[in-house]
């Protein structure tokens, strides 16, 4: 379809002529590129002419290749130098000549070791900034919460109840199911290991201690961080990217009061409630495995639960729930406020919100474990 493109030098006494033929277009560029490189190498130093009588087509790529054939110092392409080129193509050639030749900016390339140090330093500074931002935001949340309770700011009851439904009620099935399954798995593991020692009966303590103290609240908090924390970030973030937050401020309203406090209160109420359900269904899951594979009766399981497990384990677990709720709300709302402009930014901050809140939940859980160990509860 396209005519093959060729290029060659013709030398007559004292001057050299570059002869072009065929379609100098993008479609032929692949074959033309080596020929052009060869022609550029053979370029005579003196003044040269261009013969384009046999040229059948020229586009910007062809013009660019022609410039390359002529080497580093392309001529001005006055009509006298270029023969047989129609005016439209000459105009194209002149435009390309004018716009080309601006050298591409060199990308800064660092030595790899310097770059490594730079990235480590950057990450540390980033972490420090994030910690400071989070602390500042927690302060703002607490101050606004204080104003709400002292009556200086309104409590948005409708929004709070709406978020309680979304983060609490709607999350019940998944929290219950997951806790049930993990409870069953823990009981099964315990039974398998303890049977060798003839101590299957301690499976009850294993399930009850782990679920009341740790797993009930930890599983629920991680699920809620992934489910509701990400939703908070995405909601607030998309509002930020559509300038709705600026509109709230321009109307003289307080985005913390309007958006953050209802979400915080909803989580503070619902995370403990969900934790309670999680503990129960974990115990049920463990009990079911006990009854089915360890020849317990349900009455035996409940009886042993009463005998061996003190109420303080329950309170140790429950005490952590509001703290985790506060962490999740603070991190996810802050990440929402940090969104800038694009939809891509919403996605990035949603990911960061989930990762950070799960990270903080686990770190605080470890701190709590040490704290309660020292208290010997």
């Amino acid at each position, binding site marked *: 379809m396209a005519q093959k493109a060729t290029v060659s030098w013709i030398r007559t006494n004292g001057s050299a002529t570059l002869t072009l033929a065929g379609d100098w277009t993008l479609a032929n560029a692949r074959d033309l590129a080596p020929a052009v490189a060869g022609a550029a190498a053979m370029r005579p130093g003196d003044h040269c002419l261009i013969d384009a009588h046999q040229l*059948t087509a020229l586009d910007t790529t062809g013009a660019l290749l022609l410039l390359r054939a002529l080497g580093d110092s392309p001529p001005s392409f006055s009509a006298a130098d270029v023969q047989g080129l129609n005016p439209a*193509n000459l105009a194209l050639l002149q435009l390309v000549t004018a716009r080309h030749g601006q050298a*591409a900016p060199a990308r800064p390339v660092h030595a790899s070791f310097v770059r490594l140090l730079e990235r480590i330093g950057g990450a540390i500074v980033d972490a420090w900034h994030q910690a400071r931002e989070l602390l500042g935001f927690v302060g703002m949340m607490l101050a606004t919460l204080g104003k709400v309770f002292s009556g200086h700011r309104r409590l948005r009851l409708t929004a709070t109840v709406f978020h309680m439904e979304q983060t609490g009620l709607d999350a019940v099935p998944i929290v219950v199911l997951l806790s049930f399954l993990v409870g069953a798995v823990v009981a099964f593991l315990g039974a398998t290991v303890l049977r060798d020692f003839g101590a299957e009966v301690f499976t009850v303590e294993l399930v009850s201690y782990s679920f009341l103290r740790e797993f009930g609240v930890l599983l629920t908090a991680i699920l809620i961080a992934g489910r509701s924390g990400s939703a908070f970030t995405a909601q607030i973030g998309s509002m930020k990217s559509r300038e709705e937050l600026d509109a709230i401020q321009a109307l003289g309203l307080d985005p913390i009061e309007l958006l953050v406090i209802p979400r915080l209160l909803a989580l503070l109420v619902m995370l403990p409630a969900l934790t309670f359900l999680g503990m129960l269904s974990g115990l049920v899951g463990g009990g079911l495995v006990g009854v089915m594979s360890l020849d317990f009766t349900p009455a035996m399981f409940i009886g042993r639960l009463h005998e061996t497990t003190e109420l303080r384990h329950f309170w140790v677990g429950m005490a952590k729930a509001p703290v985790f709720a506060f962490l999740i709300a603070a991190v996810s709302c802050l990440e929402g406020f940090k969104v800038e402009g694009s939809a891509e930014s919403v996605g990035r901050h949603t990911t960061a919100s989930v990762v950070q809140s799960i990270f903080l939940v686990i770190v605080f859980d470890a701190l709590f474990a040490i704290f309660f160990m020292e208290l010997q509860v």
Partner: protein
Amino acid sequence: MNADVLIEVRGLRNVFGTQVVHDALDLDVHRGEILGVIGGSGAGKSVLLRSIVGLKGPDGGSIRFLGQDTTHLGAEDRRAIDRRFGLMFQDGALFSSLTVLENVELPLVEFHHLPPDLVKDIALLKIALTGLPLDAAAKYPAQLSGGMRKRAGLARALVLDPEILFLDEPTSGLDPVGAAAFDELISTLRNALGLTVFLVTHDLDSLYSLCDRVAVLSDRHVVVADRIATVENNPDPWIQACFRGPRARGARAHRPVPAPVIPGGFDGNSR
């Protein structure tokens, strides 16, 4: 004459649910011209553009694009057609994970097996042609202003040397100086590259300063498609409201002397 018609739309019908956007719409786009399409908000200008380039299958009628009926094309033939036009979206639609240079290089890398330095050279040339400063080439779309994103989108649309360029509201959201500069850029590129331009716009200044012909979309079809002086005198009420309104008076006052239109005059013998 027929050889000079690049796009021929006949009896186009587009329906969304119960809402008929286009009905019995006819439109021709001639080789080498800049055709401006104007119409009220919601008149279906962008839908018309999307139907022609194949992003939306029409609900009736036929579209002949570069001599082929594109309404019943297989996927491979469709892709061959796709490479012959360039489309600039309203906000550039640049890929946000790539730099401007990588955005412009992408079609070249995908469709042509060229040496990497040539690919880069071609892409940088296109970036320079659209008037972007070269230090913008290494930036990501999020780091650019709206006008620069439009120019980068134009560079990507031009990179395969298309025969026809579709522009979706190229001057919307630009300041008057930037909009005028963009109009001039389109005009320069059309003259140098022998492009045919299909321009969807709201901007009366663009219509007066840039377009060879204007098509008015109203009441589900093209009311008139002609030189702007002729369009102005059409008795259609929307056209009268639009071209006799206070905003049109200003645009008309600054109308440049129209250049003579020679059909096929800009493409030379080469295409």
